[in-house]
C-alpha cells in the first residue's frame, strides 16, 4: 500500500508539541521538517531557536540546534554560517524577538546579505510571557500591556518588518504567508522551500514571515483566530511575495559569503 502520510524524519520520534491548541508553531515546525527531508539536508542543517514560545524547538526538530538569547538569533546564525557555509542555517524567531529586542541583529544580518534564512513567526503578541503588546500588535488590539487597545499616540504603530527589510540590497527573498488554512499551509511550505533553496544556491538573506494564530492570548477559539488573520491581521500585514530576486546568482555582489 502506498504510504501517503508519516512523521517527517527531521522531527524527533517521541514527543508531543507543548504548543497551545490552535497555535501556528506546530504547523510551521512540521512544514520546515518536511522541507528539510525533501531537500535531503537533515545531516547538514543547523537551526537557531529563539527565546519565546519556540525556545523548545530543539525538543522537536531532529537537527543540530543552538538556542540563542532573546533577539540574538541572527548574530548566532551569522557566526555559524560564516564558519560552516556548507550548512543550511535557519533562525526561528517571534515578533518580539525579531522586531523589538533583536531588531539590530535582524536588520544588519539582512543588510550584510548573510546567506541564511529567518522563519519569522508573527502572532502580534508576546506569547510565552502571557500576551503583552508586541511591535506587531495591531492598532486597537487589546493586550495585557495595552489593555484598552494599542494606541498609536502612546504605543506607536505596528511594524511591517518584512517591507522594511525588503528595502535592503542584501536581501534576496522575502515573503509573507500564513498557516490559517490548508491552502495557506501549502503556500507557506512552498515559500520556505524556495527560501532554503535560495540559501543553498548562495543567493543571500531570505526571510519568511508567517502570520500565526495565537488563540490563547488573542482570547479566541482556534477557528476564530484563523478567521481573524483573514479578516483583520492580513489587512495590516498583506500576504504575498514582498521581494524576490531570482536573477541574483551565486557569487555575485551581496550574494552570501561562501568562499
Amino acid at each position, binding site marked *: 500500500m502506498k504510504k501517503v502520510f508519516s512523521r517527517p524524519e527531521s522531527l*524527533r520520534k517521541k514527543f508531543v508539541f507543548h504548543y497551545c491548541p490552535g497555535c501556528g508553531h506546530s504547523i510551521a515546525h512540521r512544514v520546515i521538517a518536511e522541507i528539510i527531508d525533501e531537500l535531503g*539536508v*537533515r*545531516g*547538514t*542543517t*543547523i537551526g*537557531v531557536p529563539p*527565546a519565546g514560545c519556540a*525556545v*523548545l524547538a*530543539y525538543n522537536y*526538530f*531532529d*537537527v*543540530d*540546534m*543552538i*538556542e*540563542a*538569547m532573546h533577539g*540574538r538569533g541572527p*548574530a*548566532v*546564525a*551569522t*557566526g*555559524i*554560517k*560564516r*564558519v*560552516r557555509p556548507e*550548512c*543550511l542555517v535557519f533562525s526561528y524567531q517571534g515578533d518580539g524577538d525579531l522586531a523589538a529586542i533583536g531588531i*539590530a*541583529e535582524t*536588520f*544588519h544580518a539582512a543588510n*550584510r546579505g548573510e546567506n541564511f534564512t529567518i522563519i519569522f513567526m508573527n502572532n502580534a503578541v508576546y506569547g510565552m510571557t502571557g500576551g503583552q503588546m508586541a511591535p506587531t500588535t495591531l492598532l486597537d488590539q487589546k493586550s495585557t500591556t495595552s489593555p484598552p487597545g494599542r494606541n498609536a499616540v502612546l504605543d506607536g504603530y505596528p511594524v511591517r518588518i518584512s517591507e522594511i527589510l525588503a528595502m535592503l540590497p542584501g536581501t534576496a527573498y522575502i515573503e509573507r504567508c500564513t498557516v490559517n488554512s490548508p491552502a495557506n499551509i501549502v503556500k507557506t511550505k512552498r515559500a520556505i522551500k524556495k527560501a532554503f533553496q535560495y540559501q543553498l544556491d548562495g543567493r543571500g538573506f531570505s526571510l519568511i514571515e508567517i502570520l500565526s494564530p495565537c488563540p490563547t492570548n488573542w482570547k479566541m477559539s482556534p477557528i476564530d483566530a484563523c478567521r481573524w488573520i483573514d479578516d483583520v491581521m492580513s489587512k495590516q500585514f498583506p500576504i504575498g511575495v514582498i521581494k524576490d530576486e531570482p536573477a541574483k546568482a551565486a557569487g555575485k555582489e551581496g550574494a552570501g559569503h561562501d*568562499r
Partner: protein
Amino acid sequence: MNSKVLMQGNRIIGEAAIRAGCRFYAGYPITPQNEIPEYMAENLRKVEGGVFIQSESEIAAINMVAGAASAGARAMTSSSGPGISLKQEGISSMAAQELPGVIVNMMRGGPGLGNIRPSQGDYFQATRGGGHGDYRTIVLAPGTCQELADLTMDAFDLADRYRIPVVLLADGMIGQMMEPVVFKEPKPRQYSADYVLKGAGTGKAKTIKGLILDPLDMEEHNWKLDRKYRVIAAKETRCEIFNTDEADIVVVAYGTAARVAKGAIKRLGDHGIKAGLFRPISLWPFPTEELRRLAGTRKEFFVFEMSTGQMLEDVRLALQGYADIAFHGRPGGVVPTPVELANVIVRQYRRDR
C-alpha cells in the same frame, strides 16, 4: 625560532590570536582597543577560513562569537569597559552553554562612559562572572607586551580545555605601548569536539542550550559548572613573585599597576625599605594559596590598583588574619608614577613604626 619584533600591544593580541588559530573575530569600535579589529580586518581575512565581521553592536559581536564557537571555530571579540558591559548577556550564555571563546577587555576609566585613559576598574566585573547567574570566567592579566602575546595564545588553549569563556584583562596603557615580542609556537589544538555543530550527518542531532526549566536539573547544571570551576581554581592559578626573599613589605599589583610597582620597589631600596612584588597573572582563579604562603614569613602587604580597591578584596580573602594589608589606589584613568607610589609606601611604612 621566531624572531623578535617590535609591535604595539593591541596589534600583538591580533597577531597572537591568528597564530593561535583564531579564525573568527567580531567586534565593534571602541577606544582604546581599535587597533585589534583593525588588525583583524587587515590580517584575519587573508588567512584560509578567516572571518572578520565589524558587528552592528557589542551584543551582536559576542553572539556571533558564540555561534562561531558552536560551529567549532576558535573565536574572539574585543572591547573596552562600556562594550564589555553590553557583552555580559552573551558571556553568561556562553558560560551556561559551555562554549569556548576569548574576550579581550582593554580597560578604561569608568563607570559609565568614563574616559579612555588606562584603568583597572573592571576587576569585579571580570572576576565575578560579570553577567547574570552563577558562573565564572577565567581572567588573565598581562603585564607586558610579551605576556600579551603568550596569554592570548594560552587563552584559546584554556577556553578549549575547559569549554569556558576566557577574559584577557588589560588596559589602554598596555594596548597602546610598543615592546619587543617573540611569538611562541602555538600548541596543537587539544579539545573534545563532541559539542561542535556541523549538522547531524547520519547520526544523532546535537543541542546546545542554556534553558533548563526544571530547578533540580538546573541546580545539577550549576553544580556541574561549579565542579569545573573548582578544577580550574586548583590547576590554573598563575602569578609572578619578584624580589620577595628579603622583603619587609610585599606590594600586590597586576597589569600596568605592577609595572608602576616595580619601578617604585627600586626606589624604595633608596629609602632603606626592602620591598618585593606579588603579581597575580590569573585574576580568576586568584592565586590565593601562593599569596598566603608568602604571608608565612612576611607580615606587611601593600595593595596597589588603578581603581578604588577591587583586587584588594581578594587579597583580604587570602590574607585576612595572616598579615597587615594597606592600600593605595588611583581610579579614573590616572596612572601614578613610580615616585608617587614609592612616596606613599614610605609614608605608610614610617607611620606604622
